[in-house]
């Protein structure tokens, strides 16, 4: 085990895959140089090891970063395209959804599109409306895509490696506020399989399902509730599509209560899918209907008091959990 930051762990994972397979390469803006405070730090030092043909510093051309990744994947390589933030990812939705996600099917299996697209999600203090969005629900709703949203350094590294080796296009969503967080990373290959959730905390009264940064808040909420004598199980999905129904259903069978917590806007979010699915598939296990917690349907405000008002906080998760526990 080594302790490292999320950013370092993911960079390690990328470097390891690039060493293993010469057809793995990365492209994106500012990948070749140090840069204060953006995701570009995640590529520090890689150009020195792998050269400018495999760590490709691109023009500001989101359509082409994504489109070129699709073309290069179809032509037999494994690109990792970095769009920096899900907000900028919106500039390349077409190439991701109309091309990457559909090519294998639409061409009857003649081609695969083994690419990874990194699009960081989540709020950072002062990020405001255009640098804070969490759009995982869109891509879960898009056939052809795999969606992962790791919450720890080990999962970031392990899932990036699995994503790179996968033959499906994978949307890799890192939370910007996780980059600097630290955690233990195994010294071995450390693969984390796509589609497997992790139970962060066992419990018997309520299941909280979450992912990415919100999973940490869910654990905090569980700790708060433990003080009341309530036993909360926390599941970090890690992969959003395909999500680990086996683990979630089993947990709900045990606890009979479900809360899905997400940072994204609640209306139309992924939590709604999980809640609706569990409602349909675990009806006999449920002691009360599943609850959701997510952000209000409004853009992210800038000033701190408003921003805090907007946030899905641990307290809000606790309050929702109590609602489920009291029902």
């Amino acid at each position, binding site marked *: 085990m080594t302790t490292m930051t999320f950013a370092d762990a993911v960079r390690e994972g990328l470097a390891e895959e690039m060493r293993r397979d010469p057809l793995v390469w990365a492209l994106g803006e500012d990948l070749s140089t140090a840069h204060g405070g953006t995701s570009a730090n995640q590529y520090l030092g890689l150009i020195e090891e792998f050269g400018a043909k495999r760590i490709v510093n691109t023009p500001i051309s989101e359509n082409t970063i994504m489109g070129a990744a699709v073309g290069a994947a179809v032509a037999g390589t494994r690109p990792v395209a970095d769009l920096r933030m899900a907000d900028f990812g919106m500039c390349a939705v077409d190439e991701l959804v109309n091309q990457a996600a559909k090519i294998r099917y639409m061409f009857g299996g*003649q081609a695969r599109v083994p690419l990874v697209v990194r699009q960081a999600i989540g709020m950072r203090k002062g990020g405001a409306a255009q640098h804070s969005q969490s759009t995982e629900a869109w891509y879960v709703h898009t056939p052809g895509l*795999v969606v992962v949203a790791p919450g720890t350094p080990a999962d970031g590294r392990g899932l990036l490696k699995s994503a790179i080796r996968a033959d499906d296009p994978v949307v890799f969503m890192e939370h910007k506020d996780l980059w600097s967080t630290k955690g233990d990373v195994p010294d071995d290959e450390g693969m984390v399989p796509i589609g497997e959730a992790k139970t962060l905390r066992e419990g018997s009264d309520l299941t909280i399902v979450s992912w990415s940064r919100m999973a940490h808040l869910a654990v905090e909420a569980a700790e708060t509730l433990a003080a009341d004598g309530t036993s909360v199980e926390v599941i970090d999905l890690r992969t959003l599509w395909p999500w680990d129904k086996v683990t979630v259903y089993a947990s709900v069978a045990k606890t009979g209560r479900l809360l899905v917590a997400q940072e994204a806007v609640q209306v139309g979010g992924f939590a709604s899918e999980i809640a609706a699915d569990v409602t349909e598939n675990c009806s006999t296990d449920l002691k009360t209907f599943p609850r959701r917690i997510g952000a209000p349907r409004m853009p992210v405000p800038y000033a701190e008091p408003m921003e805090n008002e907007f946030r899905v906080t641990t307290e809000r998760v606790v309050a929702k959990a109590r609602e489920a526990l009291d029902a």
Partner: protein
Amino acid sequence: MSETDQPRNTPARIFELYKTMCLIRAFEERAEDAFDEGFINGSIHQYIGQEAVGTGVCSNLRRNDYILSNHRGHGHSIAKGADPEAMMKELMGRVGGTSGAKGGSMHIADFSVGMLGANGVLADGLTMGVGAAQAITLKGDDSIVAVFVGDGTTNRGPFYEALNWAMVYELPIMFVCENNTYASSTLTRSVTAGDGPVARAKAFGMPAFDVDGNNVVAVDALATDLIARVRSGQGPHFLHARTYRVKGHISRDKLLYRRDGETEENWENEPLGQCASWLADNGLNEADLRSAHAAAYAQIDTAVTAAKESPFPDAALAYEDVQDFGPPEPWAGTGDAA
């Protein structure tokens, strides 16, 4: 399709191109008939009048070179060597279609001959094309990429991104702009500023050349030259072919937006006739020309018959080739379909 080791512009070579053009023409005419008879769903974008471009370009490509096409992809596919019978099956949604009948006309593709797909979204082939070229440089292949783009599509932003990108990374790619005057019902020049695609490509430092796109001899000669340059590592090149979309945008299009006589005037310059004259002038026997033409139609008629006789695919095949991870819920051919 054919290799590039033949001498240029010989009657023998141009005769081969003529045969390819006849095959495309026959395919498009018969596809329209099949569409009108109800054998094809959706819509078809025909290549009639533009045959010389795809043919003249692809005749200079090797099998392991890639092309990326757009919505008007039948001609590009045939020119690159796809089997017209499998294509016709694809259009009719039958077993044996190039894409297993999952894509249809607008997503015609044949990866076995390097045809990486038509495309229902304009300009996306361009950005994918530069990516394919980047993959080539990474793999150290000696193949190259040709991308086809319509005049109207040159007003979409990704076109410029792709031009810049190709130059920055000095990629082995040729852009082929087929200027057929129209974009759907819009006269492209009415919504295009400046001197057009060649001037725009040059502004990115890309060598760009203009050619009469209805003259296969000229297209072939220019393509031979430019593709040789691309292949020898001289970076991206731009070929602009002036042509005319003789038919409607899609086969159902009634062309209500054209002035009287416009189509007919332009029909006089259509590429097959021009090519036949050139061949006749260069000693080809008229009977040979006629029989080549007839052979093309015969081949396509056979393809049409085969396609009509081919069964529809089993509905359960719909669930194949979706993705490795995650089932296509809520149903997946598991028998719960009503």
